[in-house]
């Protein structure tokens, strides 16, 4: 089948990113307007707006399966693209699409279910000889059971939400005494985030690298991988800066891990875009973690080094087309870095920073790509995640990519809110990062300052504050207030005012 129209069940930059490819492919797009951000920037890019803003529902708009299905049916959209987050990895949503004969841009409900359930995913991996970490082979029911398994495989261990992703419902346990508290926290967080409180336990690798492989499959039994992405710069399991390729891999390891990733995909007859996540320890042992069955936030770095449009491939393979390329056609070219620009106060523990973006100025150059869902006067609301833009820089090698990214960040100005720009600069100028010597504990262990500050910066800020203060005192002093005018009262008023005394 050929996709003619597409409902985008997402917002922000990814909605815009999907529109771009859709436009290129001649697909009509429908976007959803929510009451939470009725003037959102992404609505300018869709061909037609489906208005969800009239009625407030209990369920958030992008999680309301039936409402979205209904919207697709009334607007006669052939397909739904879920983006990332929200319902992108919800098997029920995919199933409802299948039932309603709407094409879900992603794998089948069955595949999503299998890969989404980490216990099943691990069993599949084991069956197909993909290395795994030791742990519970299924969900852990209570703290006592957790203690038993933990003692068997040895501390530290990690508790993870079976339905999870994105760092929610994850807790590291260093010693036995903490396990009960952490179990409680992990289950309650998992319950909230995914409506499923089940957790499993596994050996915790200290300071691993987080390496993920982009894979594709089609419905005709073809599979490829597009190389890896290095996502080790994380804070509380939230990725903040990614690059492709990774300096930790050589050709042989890349090929080996790529094949392992493809074996995972094959095990479920995977089709469309997927990401296989591995942990890589200091001795270059890799362990399968999970497979994400959606397009990833950080997909642009892969696009840059492969010169492919992943959304296009995703839509095509979802619609049943054959993959247009073979593994040998995939050539990695140069180096790409992505910085996530989040509306967060880095200096206050990365807490969300809400407010109005008064002005924004993006850096411009041929090797710079900006994916963003904001523009001047956009509002950062508490309802959605804090990412407002992604800066992607592509250069011939890692060294140049780092320098070009720093230069780009210096020209990336946002007025009105605090962002992670100074943080990204700090990462990129850190000597260990430059050497490629880093892992997932980099932020916690290596970074003394979470933000980049030049030698004279505080002095300049002090000068700026003083200058403005002196100027405001000057304005107060020189504001000409005409007290005489107050005495010139019209005879009409004066007369009456006197009489009424």
């Amino acid at each position: 089948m050929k996709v003619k129209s597409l409902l985008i069940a997402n917002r922000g930059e990814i909605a815009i990113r999907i529109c771009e490819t859709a436009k290129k492919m001649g697909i009509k797009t429908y976007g959803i307007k929510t009451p939470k951000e009725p003037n959102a920037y992404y609505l300018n890019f869709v061909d037609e707006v489906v208005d969800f803003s009239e009625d407030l529902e209990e369920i958030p708009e992008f999680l309301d399966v039936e409402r979205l299905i209904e919207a697709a049916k009334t607007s006669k959209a052939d397909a739904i693209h879920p983006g990332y987050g929200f319902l992108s990895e919800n098997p029920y949503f995919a199933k409802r699409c299948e039932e309603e004969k709407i094409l879900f841009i992603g794998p089948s409900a069955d595949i999503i279910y299998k890969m989404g359930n980490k216990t099943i995913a691990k069993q599949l991996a084991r069956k197909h000889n993909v290395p795994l970490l030791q742990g519970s082979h299924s969900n852990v029911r209570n703290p006592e059971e957790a203690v038993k398994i933990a003692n068997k495989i040895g501390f530290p261990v990690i508790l993870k939400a079976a339905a999870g992703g994105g760092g929610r419902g994850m807790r590291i346990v260093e010693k036995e005494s903490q396990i009960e508290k952490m179990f409680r926290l992990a289950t309650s967080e998992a319950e909230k985030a995914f409506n499923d409180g089940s957790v499993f336990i596994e050996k915790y690798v200290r300071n691993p690298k987080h390496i993920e492989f982009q894979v594709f499959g089609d419905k005709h039994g073809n599979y490829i991988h597009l190389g890896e992405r290095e996502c080790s710069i994380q804070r509380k399991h939230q990725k903040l800066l990614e690059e492709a390729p990774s300096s930790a891999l050589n050709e042989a390891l890349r090929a080996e891990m790529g094949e392992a990733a493809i074996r995972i995909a094959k095990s479920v007859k995977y089709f469309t875009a997927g990401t296989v996540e591995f942990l890589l320890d200091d001795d270059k042992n890799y362990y399968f973690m999970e497979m994400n069955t959606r397009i990833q936030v950080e997909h642009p770095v892969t696009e840059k080094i492969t010169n492919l449009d992943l959304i296009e491939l995703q839509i095509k393979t979802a619609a049943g087309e054959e993959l247009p390329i073979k593994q040998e056609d995939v050539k990695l070219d140069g180096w790409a870095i992505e910085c996530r620009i989040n509306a967060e106060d880095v200096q206050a523990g990365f807490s969300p920073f809400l407010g109005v973006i008064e002005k924004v100025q993006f850096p411009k150059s041929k090797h710079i790509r900006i994916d963003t869902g904001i523009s001047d006067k956009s509002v950062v609301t508490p309802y959605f995640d804090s990412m407002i833009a992604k800066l992607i820089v592509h250069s011939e090698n890692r060294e140049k990519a780092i320098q070009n990214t720093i230069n780009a960040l210096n020209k990336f100005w946002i007025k009105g809110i605090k962002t992670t720009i100074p943080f990204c600069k700090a990462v990129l100028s850190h000597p260990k990062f430059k050497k490629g010597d880093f892992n997932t504990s980099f932020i916690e262990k290596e970074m003394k300052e979470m933000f980049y500050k030049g030698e004279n910066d505080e002095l300049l800020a002090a000068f700026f504050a003083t200058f403005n203060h002196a100027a405001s005192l000057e304005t107060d002093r020189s504001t000409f207030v005409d007290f005489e005018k107050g005495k010139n009262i019209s005879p009409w008023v004066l007369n009456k005012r006197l009489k009424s005394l």
Partner: protein
Amino acid sequence: MDINGKLYKKFLERNAAYSQQHGSVGMKKQHSKGKLTARERLMLLFDSDTFNEIDAFTKTSPSESNFGKVVNAYGDGVIIGHGKISGRPAFAYSQDFTIMGGSLGSVHAKKIAKIQDMALKMGAPMIGIIDSGGARIQEGVASLAGYAGIFRRNVISSGVIPQISVIMGPAAGGAVYSPSITDFVFMTNKTSYMFVTGPNVVKEVLNEDVSFDELGGAEVHMKKSGVAHFVYEDEENTLLGVKKLLSYLPSNNMENPPTAEVYEEKLEPESALLEIVPDDPNKPYDIKDVIKHIVDRDTFFEISENYAQNIVVGFARLHGRTLGILANQPKVLAGTLDINSSVKGARFIRYCDSFNIPLLTLEDVPGFLPGLDQEHNGIIRHGAKLLYAYADATIPKITVILRKSYGGAYCVMNSKNLGGDFNFAWPTAEIAVMGPEGAVSILYRKELIESDDPVKLKKELAKRYRDEIANPYVADEKGYIDEVIDPALTRKKLISAFEALENKHVNSPARKHGNIPL
């Protein structure tokens, strides 16, 4: 005159003695505590070289008994005088803590009374800088009588000339009542205190340990009691604040407020106003963002910004003219009216009315704050103050309804029939007896109980209610709203509306005074 003669010599001697008294010793004492001297404060308050002291050489009358120590110093612990503030005459007294702890004896009191009388006679602002240990114990009843005289003058001057109190040290016991009668109280954080009974007495009577700061520090009076209208971190900024406040006020109740030069004619539509107020009636926003976009740039000067924050009051300039602004703050308690905010609002309206300052009301109020606590503490009585103040005020009064305007709160907030001169509404306004959910539950109680899907029915009915009743158009068609305006044009509309009202005058029936529900 013979400048070497005896007469002139005596004059020079006295001056020298006086200078010495205000010299380094006392100055050091004050400075070491982070405080300025009484004289330095006056110098900062008044335009340079304009302050003239009077009664500099008064002395304590010889005491009848020798109880306690009497310091023989010129001025008796207070400086009084007159000068110009931003070019306009003003009168002031400043207590000197270095002389007998700034305590108030009969001579001290007489001096303050003298300057108060002058200010009233001249129709000029009166500023009191307070830094005093209270009534001078040695002088007994004479100092108490002195206080009473000051209070009476405060009351007589009230509503005739602006009276401002600046607390820069202790103000204890009876001394606190003079500031509380005056129009505005400034405090300097960490070095000023106000309380009726001090920590020692609290300890003796109630056996509670409480520090000066906890009992009557600037923070307490700014946030909890509402006694202090303005709090600054240091004395220089406090005095700058006094000057700034005065720039909005007329010298007396016969004058109109002063006009400032208009630097920029900002008349084009302000599209930001469309963004600030969310359509969703349950979403909060900061009303100060709205105010900022309506008034002249950087002219909003908020009063009591940390007290009863569900109402925002302050002065601003609109096209150069002073304007009083009273606005509900949806960010705090959803902008509901409670006891404290009603009283805060009412007092502000009374002030504006006394001094011919036009009043703008920005309304987004879901109603009065419900609850046992509010009812038992007399929200009826206190809410009535706000209503009374609005209805009683004869100044130009304009209301703009931004969003919610429900029930009794609609009536209170300067509605048309309460005496609003112009009542505007934005298209987002919801004017009704109550919010949609509540109204529907009452009107369709039976239908809702019997319905198979009450949630859905309720939502449909609420939508109908919004379409048919709770919108600005019904009120507009009935004349309770003069005009539904484009939010972006609010500033322009208000400028011309206030211009139209410039010569407003209302003849009130002859009476001694009304009986506001105090």
